[in-house]
C-alpha cells in the first residue's frame, strides 16, 4: 500500500483511525515524550508514534511577535532554498521541544529499530502534539533517505488540528524533496488552532488566559480541552482576534497571488508585523457534514484557512467562537469511502466556479460546504494560476535549454577545449590570453550561454519557477555540465581584465557583492545538495582557477616582500595550508575525472605558478605535468 495521498490511491482507513486514537491517547500522559504502539497486521508492519500536547497557546511563542527562527540545518539539512542557501524558518518553541525529546528520550533508537526492521512509522499528534510528529517525520526522512536498494519504508505523518510551524521556505523545501504527500493534516472547518500562529503573541492579552490554558495538558485547573472553556463569552472575542489577524496575512498574500503591482502594500507592511507561518503538506478540510476536501497547493491552503471560517453575519460570531474550540477538542469522525473525499487539485482549482450557481457536482458542493464566497474562489483560482505559470515558465526554459542552439554552443566550447589541448594549451590560459579567433568565439558562446542561465537564476530568485525546480535531476545535470565547462572561462575573463583590482578577488566578497556570478554559485549548491554533500565554503572544481590566481598573487608578493624585509609569517602559514589543500583537491578531482588533465599542461597558469612557487610553500608536495 502506498502511504501517499493521491487522487487514485488513498491512505488506509485503519491507519487513520489508529492514528486518531493514538493522537488523543497521548494527551493522557503528558509527562511522557511520546507513546508507541505496533501494528503487526499491516503490510508492511507499522509502528505508531504519537506525541502529547504541551503548554498553553502562549508557550508556542518563544518571543514577540511570532517566535520563529532559522531552522537547525544540522538536524534538517534539506529545509532551505538550496541555491540561495537560505534556511527555512521554524517556530522556536517547537524546535526546542523537539530537540529536548531527541536528547532525553529513546525516540532515535525506536526509529532506528523500526527502520532497520523495514517497518512503516506513522507519526501522529493532535493539537500541539502535531508539530513534534511533523519534526520527527522530517528528521526520519532526512536520516533514512529511501532508495530502491535499502528497502526502507518512508514514514507518514498524520496530524489533527495542528498549528502552523514553518514559513514559506519550509513548505518550498518539503515540496522540492517530494515529501508533501507524507504529511496529512486534518483540519475541522472552524478549528481555531491551525489559525492561531497567524496572530502575533501580543494578541493574547490577559482576558484570553483561560482559552490559552485550554491547550495545556499540564495545567492544574484541568481546563485542558474542557468543554466549559469554550462556553465562556471570551471565546467569540478570541475567535475574532485570531480571524482578524488571519485576514491580514491572507489578504496580503492574496494581493500578491492576484498579481498586485501596488507597492503601497510593502510600505504598509513596514508598520504591520505579518506572521511568517505558512501551511505545508497535504491538507484535508473536514466540512462538518461528512465531506473531506483535499488540497495540496500551499497558497490555496492558506487562503482556505481564512475563507472557510469567514462568517456570514454578525450574529454567527458567538456560536462560531464556541464551535472553533469544540471542533478542536472533539475526536475526528472520519467518513470513510472515496465518495466522501473531494480533491481540489491544480485542475479543479484553476476551473473553480466563481459563484454558487446551484450545480450539484462534487466541486461546487465542496465550495458551498466550505462557505466560499466569490472573493475566496477568485483567490483560489489565482493560487492555481500562479502554480500553472511557474510550470509554464519551467517548460519554456526547458525548451530553450534543449534547443539545438544551446547544445551547439556547449559543443563549440567543448571543441575549443579539445583543440587547445591538442595545441598543448589549457583552454583556461588560451582564453585568458585572447590571442586567436577561437578564443574570441568561445567568449561569445560563453556570453550566450550565460544569458540563459542568468534568466533561470533571475526567475528562481523571484519564486517564478516550481518549488521542485532545484531538485530536478535534469536541471542539475544541465547546470553541472555548463558550470564545469564554462566557469573556467569566466574566471579567466575576470583576471584577464584585472577586475580583482577594483572588485576584489573572484571568490571573495567585497562590499557585500560577490564577484562570482550567481549562475555558478547557485548551481554548485544544487549539485552538492543532490549528492548529499557538505556545501563547499570556498571554491569548487569549476572555479579553483581563481584560487590559483589569488595564491599566485600572494606568493609573488610575499617573495617580493621578503626582499624588502616585510616577510609575513602568518601569511606564509595560511598560504601553506591553502596550497596543500588546493594540491590535494586538484588530485582528487583529476582522479574522479571532474577536472581534466589539461590543467597540468606545461605553461598553464597552474603549472607556471607551481614551478615558480618557493619550496617553503610546497611542503614536499608535487604536481607533475602529465605525459600524453
Amino acid at each position, binding site marked *: 500500500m502506498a502511504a501517499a495521498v493521491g487522487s487514485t490511491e488513498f491512505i488506509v482507513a485503519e491507519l487513520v483511525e489508529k492514528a486518531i486514537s493514538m493522537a488523543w491517547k497521548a494527551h493522557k500522559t503528558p509527562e511522557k515524550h511520546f507513546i508507541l504502539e505496533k501494528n503487526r497486521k499491516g503490510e508492511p508492519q507499522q509502528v505508531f508514534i504519537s506525541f502529547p500536547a504541551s503548554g498553553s497557546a502562549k508557550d508556542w511563542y518563544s518571543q514577540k511577535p511570532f517566535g520563529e527562527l532559522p531552522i537547525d540545518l544540522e538536524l534538517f539539512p534539506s529545509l532551505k532554498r538550496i541555491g540561495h542557501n537560505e534556511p527555512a524558518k521554524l517556530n522556536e518553541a517547537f524546535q526546542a521541544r523537539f530537540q529536548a525529546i531527541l536528547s532525553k528520550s529513546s525516540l532515535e533508537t525506536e526509529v532506528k529499530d523500526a527502520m532497520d526492521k523495514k517497518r512503516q512509522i506513522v507519526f501522529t499528534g493532535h493539537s500541539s502534539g502535531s508539530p513534534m510528529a511533523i519534526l520527527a517525520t522530517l528528521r526520519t526522512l532526512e536520516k533514512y533517505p529511501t532508495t530502491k536498494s535499502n528497502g526502507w519504508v518512508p514514514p507518514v505523518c498524520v496530524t489533527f488540528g495542528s498549528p502552523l510551524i514553518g514559513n514559506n521556505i519550509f513548505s518550498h523545501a518539503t515540496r522540492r524533496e517530494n515529501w508533501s504527500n507524507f504529511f496529512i493534516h486534518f483540519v475541522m472547518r472552524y478549528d481555531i488552532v491551525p489559525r492561531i500562529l497567524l496572530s502575533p503573541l501580543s494578541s493574547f492579552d490577559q482576558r484570553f488566559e483561560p482559552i490559552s490554558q485550554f491547550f495545556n495538558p499540564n495545567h492544574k485547573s484541568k481546563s485542558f480541552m474542557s468543554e466549559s472553556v469554550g462556553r465562556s463569552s471570551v471565546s467569540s472575542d478570541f475567535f*475574532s482576534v485570531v*480571524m*482578524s489577524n*488571519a*485576514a*491580514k496575512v491572507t*489578504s*496580503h498574500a*492574496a*494581493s500578491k497571488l*492576484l*498579481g*498586485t*503591482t*501596488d*507597492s*503601497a*502594500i*510593502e*510600505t*504598509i507592511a*513596514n*508598520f*504591520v508585523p505579518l506572521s511568517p507561518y505558512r501551511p505545508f503538506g497535504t491538507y484535508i478540510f473536514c466540512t462538518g457534514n461528512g465531506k473531506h476536501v483535499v488540497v495540496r497547493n500551499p497558497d490555496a491552503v492558506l487562503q482556505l484557512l481564512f475563507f472557510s471560517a*469567514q*462568517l*456570514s453575519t*454578525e450574529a454567527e460570531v458567538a456560536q462560531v467562537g464556541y464551535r472553533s474550540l469544540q471542533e478542536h477538542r472533539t475526536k475526528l469522525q472520519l467518513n470513510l469511502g472515496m465518495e466522501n473525499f473531494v480533491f481540489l487539485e491544480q485542475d479543479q482549482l484553476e476551473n473553480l466556479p*466563481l*459563484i454558487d*450557481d446551484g450545480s450539484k457536482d462534487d466541486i461546487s458542493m465542496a465550495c458551498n460546504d466550505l*462557505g466560499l*464566497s*466569490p*472573493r475566496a474562489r*477568485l*483567490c483560489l*483560482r*489565482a493560487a492555481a*494560476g*500562479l502554480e*500553472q*505559470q511557474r510550470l*509554464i515558465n519551467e517548460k519554456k526554459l526547458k525548451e530553450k535549454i534543449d534547443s539545438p542552439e544551446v547544445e551547439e554552443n556547449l559543443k563549440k566550447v567543448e571543441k575549443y577545449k579539445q583543440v587547445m589541448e591538442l595545441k598543448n594549451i589549457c583552454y583556461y590560459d588560451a582564453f585568458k590570453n*585572447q590571442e586567436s*579567433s577561437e578564443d*574570441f568565439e568561445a*567568449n*561569445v558562446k560563453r*556570453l*550566450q550561454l550565460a*544569458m540563459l542561465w*542568468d534568466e533561470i537564476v*533571475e526567475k528562481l530568485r*523571484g*519564486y*517564478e519557477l516550481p518549488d521542485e525546480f532545484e531538485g530536478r535531476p535534469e536541471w542539475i545535470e544541465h547546470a553541472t555540465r555548463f558550470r564545469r565547462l564554462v566557469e573556467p572561462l569566466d574566471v579567466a575573463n575576470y583576471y584577464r581584465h*584585472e577586475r580583482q*583590482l*577594483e572588485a576584489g578577488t573572484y571568490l571573495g566578497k567585497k562590499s557585500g557583492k560577490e564577484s562570482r556570478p550567481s549562475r555558478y554559485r547557485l548551481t554548485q549548491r544544487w549539485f552538492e545538495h543532490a549528492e548529499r554533500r557538505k556545501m563547499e565554503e570556498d571554491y569548487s572544481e569549476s572555479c579553483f582557477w581563481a584560487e590559483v590566481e589569488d595564491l599566485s598573487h600572494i606568493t609573488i608578493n610575499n617573495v617580493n616582500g621578503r626582499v624588502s624585509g616585510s616577510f609575513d609569517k602568518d601569511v606564509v602559514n595560511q598560504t601553506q595550508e591553502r596550497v596543500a589543500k588546493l594540491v590535494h583537491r586538484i588530485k582528487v578531482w583529476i582522479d574522479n575525472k571532474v577536472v581534466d588533465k589539461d590543467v597540468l599542461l606545461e605553461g598553464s597558469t597552474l603549472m607556471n605558478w607551481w614551478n615558480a612557487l618557493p619550496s617553503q610553500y610546497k611542503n614536499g608536495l608535487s604536481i607533475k605535468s602529465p605525459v600524453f
Partner: protein
Amino acid sequence: MTQLNEFSSGTELASYVTSSGVLSRSWNTISSSTIPSNKGQRLSWKVHSEEDSDFIIIVFEAKSSQVKTDLVSSLELKKQNKLHFEFLCTRKSPEFQVNKDACHLFYENLQRLDDLKSHITSSTRLIVTGQGLGGSVAILFTLSLLDRTLTGKNRPLCITFGLPLIGDTNLQKAMSRSTTWNSCFLQVVSHKDPLLRPFDPQATHYMPFGTFLFCSDESSTCFENPESILKILKVLASIQGNQGFQSADYGNIVEKLYRKSIYKDVLPRGVDMNGYSTLQASISLQLSALGLTPQVQQQQHNIDIDNLVSTMETLEKKFNYQKRATFDPTKKLNSEKVNMVQLEWFKKDSRNKNIGYYDRYKNMLSTNMFSTSELDVINYRKNLTNYWEKMVEAAELKPQKEGAQFRTRWLFAGTNYRRMVEPLEIANYYYSNEEYKKFGKSYLENRPKHYKQLEEWLKEGIGAAAAASNSTSISTKNVESILNFDSCFWAHVEEALISCKVVKDVKANVLKKEEEKKKLHDFEDYVYGLLKNSEVSSDIFLRDSSYMTWWNEYEKIDGAVSHSKLGRFMSNADNYNVKYVKGTYNFN
C-alpha cells in the same frame, strides 16, 4: 510574477489595509483630544507615539474645512525661491501644478515644519495623516520628506481621509517615476464624501496619485491606476450629485471596516459573474463593494454597470501592460556584452592587421568597401548605441537620488561602451554623414547627447571612487590593450588634420591660419598630456593611423616641433614603440 489570467487585486488590498489596524491608529490620533496640539498659522499639528509601537504619528489639522480647487505652478514657486518640491522635476518635465491653498498653508508654517522635519531621522518610522485640507498638508509634508534616499524600512506612510486635492497630471507622472514614492500615499475616500463635489460633473485639472481606498458603509476596495481612480471619482460624484452630498464619518467607517474584515461581503442581487473573465469578475466585486451594482443602475439611469466594468477592465489592462513594459536594462545586459565582445575582437583583429580599429572602420566608410564581417561591426555599433541611448534616457527620467544610484551601477559598463564605440561614431560622422558634408561642423559641436551624459556620470561625485581606482591601475594597465580614456580623441585628431590643411592652403587668410596654428599647438599639448598619463592606446602609433598622418603633416608645417616636448617624443620611433609601451619614457 504575472500569470496567464489577469485579476485585479483591489479587494484583497483593501482587506489588508482595513484589517491591518493602520487606519484606526491614524484616525484615533486625529480624533484624540488628549494629545497636545501645536498651533501654527491656520494650521495645527500633533505628534504622537504610541506606547506599544515603534513609530510616530503626525496629524495635520487645517482651520478651514473649505477646499478650493485653485492650482499654483511649480515655476511660480521656484520664482519665490520655494524649492521644497523642485526635486520632483526632471530635465524632461520641469513643471507641475499643485493645490494653492495647501501650498500656502505649508509655506506659511514653513519654519516650524522645517523644525519638525529636523527631528525626523532616517531611522524614524513615521505615519503622516490628516483629514480634508489637513490631509493635503500631510501629503505636501510627506512629499517634502521624499527628497532623500529612501530604503525599504524608513519610507513614511501618508494616510489621508476625505479627498485631498493635490496636483495635476505632471505631478502624478513625476510621482510614478519612482516605485517607492507612490507607495507612500494611501488616501481613504468615502463614497459619500462631500469633497467629491469638484469631480461632478466637469473635469478638473487634478490627477490623483498613490493608492486610493474607496469605502461604502459596508465594504471597501483599492485602486492604484490614476485613470481608474479618476473614473471612480467621477462616477461616485455624479451619483452623490443626484442625491445631494452627505457627510462622511471616517471614525465610524474605519471601525466598521475593521470589524467587517472577518465577514463575507454579501453579493448584491443581480450581480451575475457567469461568463466573466477573472479580471471582469474581480472588477465587478470591486464595484459592488462601492454599491455600484445593477440595483443602483435601476435607480440611476445615467449609470451602466456592464459598461463600467468593461471601461475599468480596459483601463486596468492598459495600466498593467505599461507597468510591465518598462525598460529593464539588466535583461538585455548579456546580449549587450556579446556586442561588446564582438567589437573587442574587431579591435584585436585590426591590430593584428597592423591597423587601429578606428582607422580600419574609417577606411571602410570612406572607401565604401566592407567584408561581411565588417558589415556586422556596423550592426554591433548600432545595437549598442540603441541600448545605451535607452539606458541613459531611463536614468535621466529617474528622480535625482534614484538616478544617482542607477548611474553608479552602470558606470563601469557605460564608460567601457563610450570608449569603445564613440570612436566609431566619430568615424561615421566625418566619413559618411551627409550633414557633416554640408555644414562641416566639428563632431564636438554635434556630439550625441548620451555620450555627453555618460561622460558626465563619470565626472559626477559618484565617479570619484571609479576615477581613483582608474588612476591607481594605470601603472598596471597595458597601453597596448587599453581604450583611449578620452573617447573623443579621434575627433580631436580629425580636427587637427583639417587645421593642417588650412595652414597649408596657400589661398587661406593669414588670420585664419594663425588661429588654426594656435589650435594645433593646443592639440599638441593635449596629446602630450594623454601620453604622460598613459591614457591613450599605443594603437595610435601604428604606421598609417590618422594620428601618424597628422603628425607627418604637422611636422612639415612647423619646424618648431623639434623643440616641443611632443616633437622630442615623436622624433624617435623607439620612444613610442617601445618606451611608451613599457612605461619607461621620461615625460618630464
